[in-house]
């Protein structure tokens, strides 16, 4: 999505020159969030999630099913897995993340899954048959959404996590404990504060098949389906031979221009989406990766403006770089008939409190870093939630923001 949105933003900002979009997957860009939610609950196909776009002009080349394996920012080239070298005037890194897997034997056995791509979702969907025993490792948003979908499909669902409450990062203990109560009330079994000791498998006709999961408290949970939803890694290995700072994703400045390990701008290299680690002065100066829905869209818009100016050799490049980029992160989650919606950077908070509504019903929780509101998250109450969001934005004067965290 980040690549597509960047290309669209470049065209919108007047760039008419050639664009090549190289993607490892065979599919044109598609919308990932429904893959754990409503699309996983029905028929998983590319047509159910694809983005419509107008990038079909002769100057836009789609090179799909092709993984880039190295980059040389000095020579301005990237090389793909087939040994083909692609020259660039500017490179936009939009390689995103890939799911972590458990580091125990059997993590690839039949019946084990991760969920990130369309192919992952298709494979998982086949296994979510009524009556199947499904164990999900990880109680973040993806894990909880898959739990919800699997339960609705008639599976028996258990969630195992090292955390004390589901989605405790970033929702905080109080809201997370209430969501756990609601999940359990509809039939999910939680095994929290638990590690994994072994994936139990049986030798099938040709391959290993998962039959259970052994926890480090000695208990074994029978399962035919094991979903590993334990976070992601940034896809940056292909940049290892460059001097880019890839210690956690691709480090960039506030214009999304990549930085090297000396903290200097690497000319003509940008990054967008959840692989990019950028400073957001709305909150503070510390560069962070943000794995939220709207960040690929916002960072792509930003690169579209800056890079279009650079490529047209206008003086506006310097002006656009100097403009502050202060996106307001936002995410949502559909689970167990509830629609959660959040604005801000909840992960920065050190306390939370109920701002509106009822703990056990529709509600809005506020997230504070000391006394500064850094995020809100709610179920229902959209009108009230929108007022809080407007508050975030109106608090932002031209320079620094009153929402900024005191250092």
């Amino acid at each position, binding site marked *: 999505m980040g690549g597509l*949105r960047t290309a669209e933003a470049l065209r*919108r900002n007047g760039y008419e020159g050639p664009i090549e979009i190289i993607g490892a997957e065979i599919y044109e860009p598609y*919308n990932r*969030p*429904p893959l754990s939610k409503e699309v996983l609950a029905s028929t998983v196909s590319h047509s159910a999630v694809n*983005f419509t776009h107008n990038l079909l002009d002769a100057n836009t080349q789609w090179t799909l099913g092709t993984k880039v394996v190295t980059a040389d920012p000095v020579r301005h080239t990237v090389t793909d897995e087939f040994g083909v070298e692609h020259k660039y005037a500017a490179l936009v890194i939009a390689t995103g993340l890939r799911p972590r897997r458990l580091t125990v034997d059997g993590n690839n056995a039949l019946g084990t899954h991760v969920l990130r791509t369309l192919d992952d979702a298709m494979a998982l969907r086949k296994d979510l048959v009524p009556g199947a025993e499904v164990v999900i490792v990880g109680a973040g948003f993806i894990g909880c959404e898959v739990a919800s979908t699997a339960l609705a499909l008639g599976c028996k669902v258990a969630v195992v996590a090292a955390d004390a409450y589901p989605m405790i990062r970033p929702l905080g203990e109080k809201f997370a404990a209430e969501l756990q109560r609601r999940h359990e009330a509809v039939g999910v079994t939680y095994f929290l504060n638990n590690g994994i000791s072994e994936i139990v498998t049986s030798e099938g006709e040709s391959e290993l098949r998962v039959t259970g999961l052994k926890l480090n408290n000695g208990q074994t949970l029978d399962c035919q389906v094991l979903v590993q939803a334990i976070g992601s890694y940034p896809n940056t290995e292909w940049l290892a031979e460059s001097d880019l700072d890839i210690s956690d994703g691709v480090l960039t400045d506030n214009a999304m221009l990549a930085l090297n390990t000396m903290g200097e701008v690497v000319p003509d290299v940008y990054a967008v989406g959840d692989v990019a680690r950028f400073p957001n002065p709305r909150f503070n100066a510390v560069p962070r990766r943000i794995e939220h*829905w*709207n960040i690929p*869209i916002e960072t792509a818009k930003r690169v579209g403006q800056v890079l279009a100016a650079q490529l047209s050799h206008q003086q506006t490049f310097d002006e656009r770089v100097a403009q502050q980029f202060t996106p307001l992160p*936002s995410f*949502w989650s*559909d689970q167990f008939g509830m*629609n959660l*919606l959040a604005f801000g950077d909840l992960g920065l908070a050190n306390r939370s409190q109920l701002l509106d509504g009822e703990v056990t019903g529709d509600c809005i929780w506020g997230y504070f870093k000391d006394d500064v509101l850094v995020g809100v998250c709610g179920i*229902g*109450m*959209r*009108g009230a*939630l*929108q007022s809080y*969001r407007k508050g975030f934005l109106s608090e932002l004067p031209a320079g620094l923001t009153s929402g900024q965290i005191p250092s």
Partner: protein
Amino acid sequence: MQINVDMDKCQHYGQCVFEAPEIFQLNSNDKLEFLAEADESERANVESARDVCPMQAIFILN
């Protein structure tokens, strides 16, 4: 320009309201309402609204 929202998909998240407030609104019951016809000057805003829609439920017909 003509706009359509697939109301079967729409979950009333209201992200579109911030991108194109002249076109999209949440009513007093927190349900989405929108104008099906908009002036051409709103195109950039409506495109942004379409892009940020979590459910990808907004369609620009022409």
